[in-house]
């Protein structure tokens, strides 16, 4: 996986995509094989690795600003404020996380992750719990920040359309193995046009085909 690439990992639930992300993060240790980061095997959490979880995991007893600060070892207020402004929350810096909406909390978490200039950003279905409109907004935000800052991004998602919209490369995991490795050659920002739909359908068909194989009683024909 080259540096600066945006990779999306898709697959059915329980296929091991979150486990893969936790292995890259260094949160779990592999039972066999190895994960390398910049040529070094991953041991513990990397210095420039940041992770965005499905729930924002903000400290509810700290203001949005302090949540950003505490994560980067107490950086100065101005720097944290800038990180919040990047995600469009400059005016909510002093709010408790408890009064922010789900999307706003996730944006604070994003500001926190980006505050320390990450080299690798791991996203564990960070948009899974958001409503459709907030999702699209967040996708655009993540894409914009990724293009500005040039970090490597790995996004785990169960939403194929989200994967195609954001990633340079989509990897499908089936029962713990790579089932499909697809480069997405579309211009950014991406439109939901026919070639977008083509990529989306290729991946979806592959996922659903496996399902049909497993369940032979259900005979269905998928056409592209």
């Amino acid at each position, binding site marked *: 996986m080259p540096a600066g690439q945006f990779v999306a990992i898709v697959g059915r639930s329980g296929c091991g995509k979150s486990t893969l992300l936790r292995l890259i993060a260094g949160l779990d240790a592999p039972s066999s094989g190895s994960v390398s980061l910049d040529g070094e095997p991953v041991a513990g959490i990397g210095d420039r690795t940041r992770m965005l979880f499905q729930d*924002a*995991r903000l*400290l*509810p007893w*700290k203001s949005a600003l302090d949540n950003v600060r505490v*994560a980067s070892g107490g950086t100065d207020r101005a720097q944290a404020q800038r990180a919040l402004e990047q995600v469009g929350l400059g005016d909510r810096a002093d709010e*408790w996380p408890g009064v922010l909406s789900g999307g706003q909390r996730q944006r604070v978490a994003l500001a*926190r992750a980006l505050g320390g200039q990450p080299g690798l950003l791991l996203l564990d279905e960070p948009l899974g719990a958001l409503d459709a409109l907030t999702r699209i907004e967040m996708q655009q935000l993540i894409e914009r920040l990724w293009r500005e800052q040039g970090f490597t991004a790995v996004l785990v998602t169960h939403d194929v359309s989200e994967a195609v919209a954001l990633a340079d490369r989509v990897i499908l995991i089936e029962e713990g193995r790579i089932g499909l490795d697809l480069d997405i050659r579309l211009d950014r920002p991406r439109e939901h046009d026919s070639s977008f739909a083509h990529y989306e359908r290729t991946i979806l068909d592959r996922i659903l085909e496996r399902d049909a194989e497993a369940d032979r009683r259900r005979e269905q024909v998928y056409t592209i």
Partner: protein
Amino acid sequence: MPAAILVAWQLLGHYGAVSSRTLPTPLKVAEAGIQLARTGELLRYIWSSTQRALLGFLIGGGIGFALGLLNGLSHSANRLLDSTIQMVRNVPHLALIPLVILWFGIGETAKVFLVVLGVFFPIYLNTLHGIRSIDPGLLEMARVYKIRGAALYRHVVLPGALASILVGVRYALGLMWLTLIVSETISANSGIGYMAMNAREFMRLDIVVLAILLYAALGKLSDLAAKALEERLLQWNPNYAVDRKGGGRRGRRAEAGGIRSEAADPAGGKVVRG
């Protein structure tokens, strides 16, 4: 409501419905209070009781907090100590009075010791519970962001356990006064309990009632202090948020509703009694 009860009490006493040998009227009690206050006795008694209470609370609460912290953070310490502490907890601490008198006599040490025992358990249990119920997701987040050591306690562990610890403090304050009353009633040469027992000898019912009212007031006062502490330290928590306009404690869950319930009660909504 308390005012209405006072008026009713005064009227009943005044018109002889309740004999002054059973219950003196509030005015009589107030008179006794003023009289004792003039000689300086009242203040001295209140002061010596408060001193005992606070000393016992600080020692017992401190030990309880430290042990709760230790057992909450270290699994092996917990296995070593917790079951012993739970066993001792099941002995009502007031049942130890004869033993305590034999050990320490009837001086100050005995009373402070009993208060220490009384406040230790609620603070210990709630600290332990508070640390145990910290969201593991937050601890994992702290790992990713390399928040460790002292910073981990200051930013994550202690604030996370605070709601529960404060419940322990509130409960311990109640037990503190209860224990003190009992131990002062048994033996003392100063304090509110002493004042009450002394008054009993002389059949001064007004002073006895005054002592009871004093305990009620002191208990209420410490409860108010604990509540103020809660509102100040837990203002981030929607469950404790004070609605300034309405003046009441109203959860703001509706506003806070979003992704999951990460801002919800970190203490898991459970109260552990000592």
